[in-house]
């Protein structure tokens, strides 16, 4: 069983995922529920961008990657058109 991430790692991870567009910004009035499935999907997309195995877990290598040098801009641009080669290949 993969080692459970510490509470601090989860908190840092969620902050990082929110900053780079993988999770919606928190809304104090809605305190929108972040289902574990949503968090897992967000982690998988981040792992794809980082070229990591898409485990959906905040495992140590994923946490370490969040500290790697990078561009400041978000990775997921909200409504922007996101074209995946896979979808194009299927077409």
């Amino acid at each position, binding site marked *: 069983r993969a080692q459970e991430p510490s509470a601090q790692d989860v908190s840092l991870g969620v902050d990082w995922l929110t900053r780079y567009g993988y999770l919606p910004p928190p809304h104090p009035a809605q305190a929108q529920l972040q289902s574990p499935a949503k968090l897992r999907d967000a982690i998988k997309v981040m792992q794809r961008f*980082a070229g990591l195995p898409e485990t959906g877990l905040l495992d140590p290598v994923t946490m370490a990657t969040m500290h790697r040098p990078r*561009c400041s801009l978000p990775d997921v641009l909200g409504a922007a058109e996101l074209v995946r080669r896979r979808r194009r290949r299927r077409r």
Partner: protein
Amino acid sequence: YALSGSVWKKRTLTWRVHSFPQSSALSQEMVRTLMHHALATWGVESGLKFQEVGFQSPTEPDIVIDFARAYHQDSYPFDGQGGTLAHAFFPGEHAISGDTHFDDEEIWTYGSKDGEGTDLFAVAVHEFGHALGLGHSSAPDSIMRPFYQGPVGDPHKYRLSQDDREGLQQLYGKVPQIPDDKPTRKPLAPPPPPPTPPPDSPSLPTPDRCEGNFDAIANIRGETFFFKGPWFWRVQPSGQLVSPRPARLHRFWEGLPAGVKVIQAAYARPRDRGILLFSGPQFWVFQERQLEGAPRPLTELGLPAGEQVDAVFSWPLNGKTYLIRGGRYWRYDEAAARPDPGYPRDLSLWEGAPDAPDDVTVSNAGDTYFFKGAHYWRFPKGSVKAESDSPQPMGPKWLDCPAPSAGPRSPR
């Protein structure tokens, strides 16, 4: 690949390195050369042309390149060495669109063998991808991957991956392929010095917003526009300055004749959301940013032939538009679309208001603000009597400027 949703309409973009790395081993010449080649990497695949302009150029470059530290007046403060390395702004009409910022606390290198430092060419190619409208990509060989992947080799041999080329061509179309046309690259020689403008072209330093003395001020769609000469600043409803650098008047207001050098007054017309810009005895009507029709005479709004205006504002309380010249004002009924009879009247009816104000506008909260010089007079919502503590310095409240008593502004 991912598209940001914005793209440059033109195919020749100007650029300039506005500030250089303070502590890098790279000379300014080498920094300019690497930027030149990083842009050329995108140019050969898209037909886009990039022109370096010097500091004395009369036009603001589309892509301004800065090396900055920590908080540098945009929403992406840097974090010291490591972490975030750089960012760029997507295409658009804002002054900051296309601008590219590198963290000056990184160790910027070129062609370092031991992987020491951060390869400036590789990061520059990535960031210029954003400046042209690309978002981040998850494709394994894309330069647009969010994480730094190390040097990409020799700048004049480097070619974009297929994923990046496809994203770029979505934005700017394919380059017409001539049979023997291979993307060529000039040897890595420093680019020619930026062309000096012809001696007679005026060099236009951008004005200092903290001096006040604006030509016109208007609340347009909730944003406050501050016009000065051929420039303007925008303040968002949150009070945040869109950019400390002004935008070009004629580049934003499409169709505004080049002969119009100064906007004397401006306001947004409530009934059809038209935006009226006044200059001399005429005004121009815009819908969004496009000019609608020919210029109109001020006589249509009730002023005598040849008269001009200092200030114009529309008062939501009574649906009337006030046109001020010196110590007098005329009034125009927006609903009836005709001037009110019995004008001009004396401006002293607005108790406490300064004569010949630079302009007047109504805030999103409904208060009326008279501006003159570096000060404003606030009239609470529905009142025609200025607040007792008027005037106040406008810089700190409106334009992110230091209080007037503070010492000279800190260097950039």
